[in-house]
């Protein structure tokens, strides 16, 4: 057993290591600390990996490795004709975890569902502000307060959601970690004990793993939930060893101090591939990196000018230099792994000559513009400054003089949404729930083209927005697909963005790890993993 024993203590620890290995322990070198363990008030993926996924379940779940919806704590559901009423039949016999201050006396039921949603949606709910300053930003940003009219218990195992309008992505929304089901009985117990914050630091859920302990910024420990309603985990103990630096994570992986790690540095990929004790999973990420023109300002209000600029920029060169090959060029605003991706759309070719001619045809000469380069690294954009420099160079070849500007991240996000903004903005998006609406409406609809939205092209195309609206109220996925495919055609014609790339996600792990399934949503879940002998 080489793993989890090292030099100085190898001999003394040998006996324990063996005992340790018998209870199968899986160590994940996570990249950051969770904000807390109540999945509803937080928005970071790291937090969901540590709370929502291992500890909790939702009414609907994403099928492993896909963005398709499957039954979770709800066994089945019915949607009313007009698409505003969802009636869920709940799974019976589902047990909540127990800890030293709580042992459940009943199984999961409708009260837990009603409680889990009302505490987020109703500002007067006694658990809405159970910790001062707590807010439900994901619930709010998915527009749930305006969408959900009521959540009612019909009987112990039936719950009805009434919506203010039909919304096809609703089933995907409630599969997201913020919609995890917490125990009302546990909340009552905590309230009686005057220890409400227990909901956030001593979580109780129905998920595949039971929370054991968290040592801040260091280690999170979980144990397999022996009573899990789904397929029981194959490992006994799950440990998150919080390791912020990617090079150190890799060293730990190589030394056998952990079994799997997220987010390797692109520079390390070669050495990972060369190491026999490791393997590397990869898949295209559910993201897009783009350059958004301000379509309300001349000459960028002219689609032909935007198209010409798109043709002037060499995407392949950006992918080679900035992504180190770990991305594919983007032609649509949604990634190819997402349903309704329009394969038929043709990308604007890289053709500086033609671009220059097009600009001249439109009477655009001596154009000067700003390119905004974000100051942070994101999965969809590893180095915005370098990308901007490459764009600058390409544009200079067609006679466009580009200046690079940047701001502090918070300011960048705010200023880039100010009306009349000068220049084109490099930014991107990582999907929340795998629904195309979560890309197209959030980033390109007329509604999002105002302050507080995220449509940084300020692009408002009635035809495009109508298609999105239609798709939103249609529940049939085949029909929605057609509408979104059409929308992508309009997007390409109008070219509000230069679509840059969809980056690839990599997950290095030790060779003995089996059963790990990469999630297109970028989640790390471990109920299926195992360690080969």
């Amino acid at each position, binding site marked *: 057993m080489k793993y*989890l*024993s*090292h*030099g*100085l*203590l190898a001999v*003394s*620890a040998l*006996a*324990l*290591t063996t005992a*340790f290995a018998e209870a199968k*322990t899986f*160590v994940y070198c996570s990249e*950051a*600390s969770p*904000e*807390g363990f109540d999945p509803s*008030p937080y*928005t970071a993926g790291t937090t969901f990996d540590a709370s929502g996924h291992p500890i909790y379940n939702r009414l609907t779940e994403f099928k492993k490795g896909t963005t398709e919806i499957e039954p979770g704590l709800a066994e089945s559901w019915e949607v009313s004709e007009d698409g505003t009423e969802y009636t869920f039949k709940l799974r019976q016999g589902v047990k909540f975890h127990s800890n030293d201050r709580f042992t459940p006396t009943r199984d999961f039921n409708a009260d837990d569902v009603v409680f889990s949603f009302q505490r987020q949606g109703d500002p007067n709910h006694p658990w809405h502000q159970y*910790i*001062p*300053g*707590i*807010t439900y*930003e994901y619930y*709010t*940003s998915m527009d749930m307060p305006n969408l959900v009219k009521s959540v009612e218990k019909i009987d112990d195992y039936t719950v009805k959601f009434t919506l203010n309008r039909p919304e096809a992505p609703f089933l995907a929304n409630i599969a997201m970690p913020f919609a995890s089901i917490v125990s009302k009985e546990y909340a009552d117990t905590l309230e009686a004990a005057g220890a409400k914050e227990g909901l*956030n630091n001593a979580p109780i859920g129905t998920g595949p793993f039971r929370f054991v302990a968290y*040592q*801040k*910024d*260091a*280690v999170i*420990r979980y144990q397999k939930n022996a009573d899990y309603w789904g397929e029981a985990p194959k490992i006994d103990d799950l*440990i998150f*060893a*919080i*390791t*912020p*630096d990617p*090079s*150190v994570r890799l*060293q*730990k992986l190589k*030394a056998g*101090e952990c079994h799997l790690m997220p987010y390797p540095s692109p520079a390390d990929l070669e050495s990972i591939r060369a190491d026999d004790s490791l393997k590397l999973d990869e898949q295209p990420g559910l993201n897009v990196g783009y350059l958004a023109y301000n379509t309300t300002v001349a000459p960028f209000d002219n689609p032909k000018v935007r198209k010409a600029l798109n043709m002037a920029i060499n995407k392949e060169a950006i992918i080679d230099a900035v992504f180190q090959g770990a991305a594919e060029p983007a032609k649509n605003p949604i990634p190819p792994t997402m349903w309704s991706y329009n394969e038929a759309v043709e990308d604007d070719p890289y053709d500086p000559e033609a671009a220059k001619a097009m600009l001249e045809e439109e009477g655009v000469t001596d154009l000067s513009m700003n390119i905004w380069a974000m100051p942070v690294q994101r999965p969809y954009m590893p180095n915005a400054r370098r990308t901007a420099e490459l764009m600058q160079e390409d544009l200079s070849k067609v006679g466009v003089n580009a200046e690079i500007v940047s701001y*502090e*991240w*918070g*300011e960048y*996000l*705010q200023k880039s*949404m100010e009306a009349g903004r000068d220049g084109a903005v490099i*930014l991107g*998006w990582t999907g929340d729930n795998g629904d195309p609406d979560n890309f197209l409406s959030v980033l390109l609809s007329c509604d999002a083209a105002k*302050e*507080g*939205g*995220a449509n940084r092209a300020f692009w408002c195309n009635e035809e495009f927005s109508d298609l999105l609206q239609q798709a939103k109220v249609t529940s049939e996925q085949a029909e929605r697909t057609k509408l979104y495919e059409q929308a992508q055609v309009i997007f390409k014609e109008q070219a509000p963005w230069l679509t840059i790339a969809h980056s690839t996600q990599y997950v290095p792990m030790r060779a003995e790890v089996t059963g790990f399934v990469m999630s297109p949503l970028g989640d790390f879940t471990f109920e299926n993993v195992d360690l080969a002998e």
Partner: protein
Amino acid sequence: MVRFLLSKLLYLIPTFLGITIVAFGFVRILPGDPVLLMAGERGVSPERHAELSAQLGFDKPLVMQYLDFLGRLLQGDLGNSLVTKRPVLDEFLALFPATLELGLCAIIIATLIGVPVGVLAAIKRGSWFDQVSMTSALVGFSMPIFWWGLLLIIFFSGYLGWTPVSGRISLMYYFPEGTGFMLIDSLMSGQDGAFASAVSHLILPSIVLATIPLAVIARQTRSAMLEVMGEDYVRTARAKGMPSRRVIGVHALRNAMIPVVTTIGLQIGVLIAGAILTETIFSWPGIGKWMIDSISRRDYPVVQSGLLLIAGLVMLVNLLVDLTYGLINPRIRAT
């Protein structure tokens, strides 16, 4: 001695007030605000932004916010983190022992090696030992900590496999937190090998964190010794025929120690700065990493109160250093 102590304490009050202003102002001078950072790429509507700012108390004028902060501070309330929603003091107390443990180890290493090296280099001035040690000190002083830490990990943990890569103790040991000092807790746990594991995890981070202070202490000791050894009383002592060991050990070293103690005291600030990087490399759950994370998230309460706590500690150490002078040299007590 009591008057000496009181006069020192009196100075601390205005200093402390000054620090509250700096701590409060520092994070607010940085551009960006926590609400925007929380919302990220998605953006937040102006109404929601105003609502959240009001909820966090950021809508009030800065002076009012400062007075609120000061008022709560006087009641011992350091506020809650915007991110974790937990009291800042709780987080500090949970993380501080890790930093203290690492810092103490580092300062002990730096002193135990730095002082003798400095003394020896001074006595054998110009020798190969002097040259090698002082050149190494210069290199150590200029060492980029992050690179140095990674280099040690790759060599000792990766290549040789002698030391663990990161963390405070092997994950197979699990016992409830007692004091927060892993060396003590692992001993008290009674688990076989736990203490050895904690020690092995401390080695590399302590060396990395000790590097800069060690270099500074060695250089300072050498120059202080050289200065003192040129003084009249040392020459007199030598002239009286006093054994060299006694001249150096008693007359020279004792007087040379005053600037050295000051230097060691000042290294506490350097240690905290170094802890930020060292803790990040070695996944060490201490306050250095905590502060960096909080600054990047603009977690105002954590940054302002955290800075205050750290500054308070540095002040306390400086006070102890002042008191130590008194012990080393009674004349300072009188002035």
